[in-house]
């Protein structure tokens, strides 16, 4: 396997880590106004993700940095093409991050209400935008021979991309509701389970729409075939199975299933792209691939060594951190946020 493929896989891994982890804390943020009827409940919800959201978000930053290091042309074309989308992503992520830290540092109801609103919008918009971005990269965008994006903002808002964005939001809501069921007790836990049960069919419907869109709009058939293989199918099956576990109140297993669904969805997206990273709708010859967008072999070698050493270490202490905070948040818990 050459280093270009390794880096393509590694970036997929970073996005999997990001959607798997930040996926549930986006979900918790989106559910905040719906499940958090009073301030105490909202605080409990936020504290379930309190120690983790920042570390979760770093997966996205690392994915961005890794793209820059391993595939500079991908980074350059993607970030300039999605200029306004990324600007919105940044604004909402900024507001969200500050909101977690600031909201409970003052008791005034209006102060808290503003930050809660930031948490909601800041959790809703990023998965939507990232879903739109990935769909467009798979669907193809007007890119010329110099790897320059020639379209505008509204090229990105096609039905397929919007459906994929909504699907990403729905999966985050489902994943987040199950996470809340796992991390809380009593009334909040019951409400979370109920929400998960309601979100589940919506997620299935949006996933089906996205699958149809993927067959209509991307190169899935030529790359994977009509029968796309085990990974995409397993991704859908795990989503179906998740419903069974939600019903049976087996939260841990339901969480594992939605986690698998999210991971396999990212895997599928990368499989459809491979070996391209951004498809050109202008001329397939202009598409960015893991070869024409890549760094030099020397840089890829250096970065591979760095990644092989540090990714396992990061995984180790992040898992340990989840272990440290394994207890559920109850009415009696000390709430830092």
């Amino acid at each position: 396997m050459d280093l270009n493929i390794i880096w393509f896989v590694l970036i997929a891994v970073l996005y999997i880590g990001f959607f798997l982890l930040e996926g549930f804390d986006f979900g918790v943020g989106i559910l905040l106004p719906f499940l958090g009827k009073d301030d105490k409940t909202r605080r409990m919800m936020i504290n379930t993700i309190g120690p983790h959201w920042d570390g979760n978000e770093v997966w996205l930053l690392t994915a961005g940095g890794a793209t820059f290091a391993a595939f500079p042309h991908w980074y350059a074309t993607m970030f300039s093409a999605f200029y306004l989308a990324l600007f919105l992503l940044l604004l909402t992520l900024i507001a969200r991050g500050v909101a977690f830290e600031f909201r409970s540092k003052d008791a005034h109801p209006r102060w808290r209400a503003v930050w809660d609103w930031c948490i909601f919008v800041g959790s809703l918009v990023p998965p939507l935008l990232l879903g739109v971005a990935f769909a467009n990269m798979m669907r193809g965008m007007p890119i010329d021979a110099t790897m320059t994006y020639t379209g505008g903002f509204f090229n990105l808002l096609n039905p397929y991309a919007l459906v994929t964005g909504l699907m990403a939001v729905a999966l985050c809501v489902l994943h987040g509701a199950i996470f809340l069921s796992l991390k809380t007790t009593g009334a909040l836990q019951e409400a979370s389970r109920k929400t998960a049960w309601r979100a589940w069919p919506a997620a299935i419907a949006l996933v089906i729409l996205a699958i149809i869109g993927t067959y209509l709009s991307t190169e899935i058939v030529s790359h994977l075939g009509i029968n796309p293989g085990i990974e995409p199918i397993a991704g859908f099956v795990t989503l179906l199975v998740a419903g069974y576990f939600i019903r049976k109140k087996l939260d841990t297993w339901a969480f594992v299933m939605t986690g698998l669904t999210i991971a396999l969805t990212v895997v599928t997206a990368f499989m459809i792209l491979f070996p391209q990273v951004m498809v050109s709708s202008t001329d397939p010859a202009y598409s960015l691939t893991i070869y024409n967008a890549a760094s030099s072999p020397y840089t890829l070698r250096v970065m591979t060594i760095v990644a092989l050493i540090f990714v396992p270490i990061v995984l180790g202490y992040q898992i340990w951190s989840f272990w440290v905070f394994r207890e559920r948040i109850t009415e009696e818990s000390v709430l830092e946020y």
Partner: protein
Amino acid sequence: MDVMTLARLQFAVTTVYHFFFVPLTLGLSIIVALMQTLYVRTNREVYKDMTKFWGKLFVINFAMGVVTGIVQEFQFGMNWSEYSRFVGDIFGAPLAIEALLAFFLESTFLGLWIFGWDKLSKRVHLLSIWLVAIASNLSALWILIANSFMQQPVGYVINNGRAEMTDFFAVVFNPNIWTQFPHVIASGLTTAAFFILGISAYHLLRRPQDNAVFQRSFQIAAIVGLLGTVGVVMSGHSQMQHLVTSQPMKVAAAEALWQTEDPAGLSLLTIGNLQGQEVFSIRIPSLLSLLALDQLQGTVRGINDLQAEFEQNFGPGDYTPPVFITYWSFRAMVGAGILMLVANVYALLLVMGEQLGDKPKFLRFFIWLIPLPYIANTTGWFLTEFGRYPWIVYGLMKLENAVSISVSSGMVILSLVGFTLIYGVLMVATIYLMLKYGRQSGQPEPIEAPVGAPAVSLIGD
């Protein structure tokens, strides 16, 4: 305005704003870790109160540093995509390493530190804040390694129309980093020290006696601050000496030295017409030669000569940085630095004379000195970045070739206005919280709820 000017303006706004928070994070993380170390060693409550008090302000500041840092990482690709293509092979590596080594470490362990007071053993909890401090400063190292390539490209070859890395260790051990990194670390310590001195002074004026939290804080800050201010001056001096050979134009622009001189005098006040003629100037003879070259004689090259040399090597064009900005930035930075050194010595005298409890006359000045390091930090980066004009990568790529092609000026105006607005609002909120928590007494708050009994865990349900 054209896209390049707007993109530069946005980079300036977002970077200066980001760097309001970074130095305090760098320095305060270390000082809070020191305070907590004292607590764990001595078991005295005063150190715990100090850790909690400054820790709260640290966390507020840290959050702002984190969220504004995301913009920095995205901005290269968004606004400077041609730059990203040209240097990505080299520049992307330290950025990715920064995220992998530093961002993960600081964010995960800050979470453990904030939420782990009752969940971790005392030692592991202490280790967490030290890891946050180490990771923050490590992050500064890697981003400065990236910046150093822009100041002084090393370890590369031009291939396939871009700069490709040939030697990772040459990039990491860039000669520029040896003076720049200590300068930034020392300025972080200085910023944190003056932050603590100022807030402690406020509390010591209100309650001079029986106020151990702020007496001790003042003492620690005075000592750390001396390390910081002396470190800043020494590393800054060697930085200038390094620049004499690596970027002579920056030195000339910092001094508004239009004509090459031997020996060169240090400008105290120079007013010129920016076309290369001095209207008025007071210079101390030979001092610039002495500072730059360690000798009374010696040539320091002027802007006009360097401009001619650049034109010869790179073709016609403007190679002169905005001298007004570089000259006055340099003076503001050095002036603030000298003032802080003096104030810091005074703080130490107060500590040694054990006068903190008797409302010393000049104590209230420390409250007003809090902005000084911020002025120095900002003007320092002004000099560093404006002084490299017109290069985005010194000698290799000009700013005008670096900007994104597919991004229109309307888009940049939108994002510039958007960032400026949200940053403005957040600054108000941050200052509000800083004032609120900075004014609190430093005594522990009553615990609002008892620690809950361990409920059912994640696994097995």
